[in-house]
């Protein structure tokens, strides 16, 4: 497990442990400050000198966020886009990944390289052409279009990951099921999907986080207020420099991050395994 550089003696670890906590403070300090601010009153938030701990903790900022009439709609848009994008990515990625792992046919290499190549095309480079095309066919401000665009962003990695997961399932298991009388769809449904479930969970987790956190795609292709997400709503408040209330905004930050935080807390193992998949070459 450990690639210890110092020897394994427990007291040799104390400096490392102290330094670890310093790193934790560097990373979590700013987050903690934002969290503390979200519980302060608007006045206390901008007090000089700043207070570390809210003197009178209040939930007022959170209530204000929830009471905002557009909040539910923004939240629903965020959920719909990210869940929809991941569902679509899995729907098209699982067959492609399975076929990549199990079939051999002419042009497979070209197909897989094309999919890989699309992952190298940055979304930012496609802002102008996509905006132009959507505008010319009247598809700006469409939730479905935004969902598909977000999905395309995660499809390449989904296909590659699924292909690798399926390859890791011994082909004899499929042979065996085939002899047991299963057809291709039964094999995928009864065997492959249950067996690669951890992999699918990892891909889905990363996909949800990626799409939930997107600002650009929604902001550019669905600029209408009714189509915006929490991320867009948050950034719009920053632009609204006059009426900015820092404690309200930090409460918004916490709420906008909550689903991703919960997800990370629940499945951080999958999250990390998804991040590091393929990172280390033997």
């Amino acid at each position, binding site marked *: 497990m*450990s*690639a210890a*550089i110092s020897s394994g003696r*427990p007291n040799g*670890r104390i400096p490392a*442990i102290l330094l*670890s*906590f310093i790193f934790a403070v560097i*990373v*979590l300090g*700013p987050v903690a*400050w*934002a969290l503390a601010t979200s519980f302060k009153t608007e006045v206390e938030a901008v*007090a*000089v000198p700043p207070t570390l701990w809210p003197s009178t903790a209040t939930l007022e900022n959170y209530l204000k966020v929830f009471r905002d009439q557009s909040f539910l709609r923004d939240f629903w848009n965020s959920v719909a886009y990210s869940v929809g994008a991941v569902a679509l990515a899995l729907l*098209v990625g699982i*067959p492609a990944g399975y*076929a990549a*792992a*199990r*079939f*051999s046919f*002419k042009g*497979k*290499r070209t197909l897989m390289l*094309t999919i890989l190549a*699309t992952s*190298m*095309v*940055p979304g*930012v*480079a*496609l802002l*102008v*052409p996509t905006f*132009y095309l959507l*505008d010319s066919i009247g598809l700006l401000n469409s939730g479905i279009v935004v969902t*598909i665009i977000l*999905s395309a962003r995660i499809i390449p990695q989904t296909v*590659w990951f699924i*292909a*690798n997961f399926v390859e890791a399932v011994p*082909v004899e298991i499929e*042979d065996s099921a*085939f002899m047991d009388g299963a057809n*291709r769809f039964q094999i995928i449904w009864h065997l492959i999907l249950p067996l690669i479930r951890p992999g699918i969970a990892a891909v889905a987790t990363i996909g949800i986080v990626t799409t939930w956190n997107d600002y*650009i795609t929604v902001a550019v292709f669905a600029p209408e207020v009714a189509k915006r997400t929490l991320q867009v709503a*948050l*950034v719009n408040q*920053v632009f609204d420099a006059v009426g900015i209330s820092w404690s309200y*905004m*930090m409460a918004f930050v916490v709420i*906008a991050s909550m689903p991703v935080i919960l997800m*990370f807390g629940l499945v951080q193992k999958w999250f990390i395994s998804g*991040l590091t998949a*393929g*990172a*280390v*070459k*033997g």
Partner: protein
Amino acid sequence: MSASHTQAATATPGAGLLGDTSDTQSRARFSWIPYLWFAPAIVVLFLVTLYPTFFVGWLSFQKTRYYELTGFVGLANFYEVFGSSAFWNTVFVSLAYVVGSLAGAVVLGMAAALVLNNAGATGSVLRVFILFPWTLSMSVVGSIWLWLLNPSFGPIPYLMQAVGIEPGLMLGDPGLALPLIIIVTAWWSFPYVMVMATAAMQSIPKELYEAVEIDGGGALVKFRYVTLTHILPTLGSTALTLSIMYLTLMTLIIVMTGGGPLGSTTTLSFEAFRGTVQAVNIGPTAVVSIVVLLINVALGVVYTRLTGRVTG
């Protein structure tokens, strides 16, 4: 069904995802079924990625006014962009941003990986917490730091003042804005380097360290000849991943500085974004987009080669 299943199911083991299977293929009947499995993914990628990629190329040769195309102009857009000092300033800002953020993230990430790896169970627990900011969106990260760095009420300028440094305008200072954004970017992304480096470190066989110990090497030898040698490839590919990410990162800049002050934080990607939403003349924006695209694809190809994803 059965014959094609048989062929497909048994011919592949060992062929690999990119395996050339011409020999098993030449005899088998041609079947279009495998392509059907790919069709939905390819259709989506074609519509969303491939077609607009070709289209941006075409767009770059058009004379434009807002979103109106007014005719073919050859390389005029390219001349306009490459001839403007603003563009080269953007290139320089992008470069400084990528290199600066990368340096910060890699150094911090490596240090964190080493430290936490030697901190036993405490390290394993803290590692999860330290990775946490990586899951936050750029708009959230930007908002938090905008608050922390707020020259009037933010805690960081307050602390600076307390130790006798005049904080000034912070993000409003043309000389300070880019370094501050670099710091925030490194803060946000070093945990990613840490996780990757840790994964690589933990794949190093313990026996190698024991061998060094028996050969009489100390901690420095272990780090130099075992740890570093082993994690270097991973570190390289991680750095490339981050470079690609930094190069295309806009939201943080949109939130924190809006590309200013005085263009001091306008990167290529931010310029592509600004050009799209302002839509004064999208021809040159198409050219900037193509520049970003080409750099990204080049880095992507290097990454693919480096990680051996394709060559095996």
